[in-house]
């Protein structure tokens, strides 16, 4: 039956989408609070993957364990990144700010990528042997189920953070009405820095999980960033559920495209999506 392999592809697509979704939610949060399209977002993911890879090779610890060490590290990285670089650019006047942010985050992404290619000058990935499970005619690798579980758990944790913690409430308040939030005592700068940290950590987790799925090349940073951009613009800027839905849609399209066409084209899909989405969005802005 040709249904079984299709379903397997579908599951893989959902998984891939889920991983993209983590990174997308991260960027969505960042955009929501600071209106910054962080072009270095994907580079962080790749850096996290590279660091994890090196650690795994060196110590032999398993990936999930390493992830639990590396992800918090990237929370700090994102936090510092905001304080040192982004914060300064956010204080520019409107005209200069957009240009500065684009070039600055672009440049930082380049720097990060070059660091990755110095650490690991080739493509890298991780292979674990897992026993497959069969549901009737469908064979699914336990690995993928595990990944899905990780993504699901992370989403739940995220939901908890955003809706139940002090930070989450402050975040939502600031996104809603920054001025009033500040008048009520919320420290905008602190919230922004924390959000960058959180967003970067999510991207890092996405990057690390991606290690399990396919080989990562050092200059995947920008393609990933553009993919994530396409997702959040498609799903509605600042909307978490929208980003999730859009990322799963993209994951599925990429998987099917890669299977039926050629893997080379699957990457281009997100670019086309981005171009189309950005066009529609701009048209919509024109006719306010």
């Amino acid at each position: 039956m040709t249904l079984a392999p299709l379903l397997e592809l579908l599951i893989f697509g959902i998984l891939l989408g889920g991983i993209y979704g983590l990174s997308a939610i991260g960027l969505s949060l960042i955009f929501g609070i600071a209106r910054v399209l962080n072009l270095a977002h994907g580079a962080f993911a790749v850096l996290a993957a590279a660091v994890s890879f090196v650690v795994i090779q060196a110590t032999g610890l398993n990936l999930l364990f390493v992830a639990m060490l590396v992800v918090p590290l990237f929370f700090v990285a994102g936090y510092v990144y905001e304080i040192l670089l982004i914060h300064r650019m956010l204080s520019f006047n409107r005209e200069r700010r957009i240009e500065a942010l684009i070039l600055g985050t672009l440049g930082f992404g380049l720097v990060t990528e070059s660091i990755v290619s110095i650490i690991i000058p080739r493509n890298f990935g991780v292979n674990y042997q897992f026993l497959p499970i069969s549901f009737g005619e469908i064979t699914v690798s336990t690995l993928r189920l595990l990944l899905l579980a990780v993504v699901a758990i992370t989403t739940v944790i995220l939901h908890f953070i955003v809706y139940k913690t002090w930070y989450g409430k402050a975040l939502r308040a600031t996104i809603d009405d920054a001025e009033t939030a500040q008048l009520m005592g919320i420290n905008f700068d602190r919230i922004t820095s924390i959000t960058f940290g959180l967003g970067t950590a999510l991207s890092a987790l996405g990057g690390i999980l991606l290690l399990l799925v396919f080989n990562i090349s050092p200059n995947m940073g920008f393609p990933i960033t553009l993919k994530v951009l396409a997702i959040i613009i498609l799903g509605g800027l600042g909307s978490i559920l929208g980003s999730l839905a859009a990322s799963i849609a993209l994951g599925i399209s990429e998987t099917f495209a890669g299977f039926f066409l050629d893997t080379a084209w699957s990457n281009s899909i997100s670019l086309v999506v981005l171009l189309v989405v950005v066009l529609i969005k701009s048209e919509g802005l024109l006719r306010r």
Partner: protein
Amino acid sequence: MKTAEDIVIAALALATMSAVPFVSSSYIVFLLNGIMVLALCSLSFNLVYADTGYMNLGNSVPFGVGAYAFAFALSHNWSATLAVVVSILAILFFSALSGIFIVRLKGAYYAIGTLALVLFAQALAYNLGWLTGGYQGIIVNVAGGSAYSAYYILAFLNAVLLLLTAAIRKSSFGYRMRSIKGNEIVASTLGINAAVNKVIVLIIGSLFAGIAGILSTSYNGFVTSESSFGISITFLPVIMAILLGSFSIVAPLIGVTIVALASEIFVTTIPQLTDFMLGILLILAALYPKNLIVLKNSRFLKNKSGVRSASS
């Protein structure tokens, strides 16, 4: 004072530059060609950026189109003239096509959209092997003296674009574009068709970038995805334009040379460090742009046109 000084320096520079090919090795000529190609791309980027405020990060796309089209034509043994004509047509076609879509984008979306275009072009270059030679690119046989003819053509084109940029800025067209940057909504209520103006300036800029691509192939003898849509050729001109401005003659030319030379050195030693350096430069450009571009009653205009009195 400054008028006479600048003209003398410009004339000297011109004379020196003309003499160079006769007294130096072909390596130096190659080097200078590379710098002038980057300078041309930088001026092309600046044409759109300075007056309209839009950052066309995809300026390497017409460059690549020109480079590949020319290489493709030559590798199929078409005559040089035909190759040039076809390449220019290709450049115009692609820039008009992408232009019509790109100009509908606003602000940050414009930059992101053009960036996506570059990556898309890169992907196409990799995958359409029959057209582009895939990963290896295309290699062509070039005549021995091609580096020298390219040298003079490049120098000429740089001068032309410099003058053209200044001329446009003073013209009604220039005013329209600046008003688009100043306040696009107001500009439209003044009767200015922003979209058309943006497309026109984009096509002009792309044309020069594309010709730079043609010339690049002509003296290099090869074209690859990396050389046409890679990080260096995409971002170096941007950095140069923003950090150095393109409105006086002397200072930026020196600065441009230094930057390009530095990147040459980096490329031949540690490639990874090139990207690193470019990234740092981009960050610097973001934080500290030296906006020589924003000159009121552009000093350059008075200089270049000699004794022309200040007339707005």
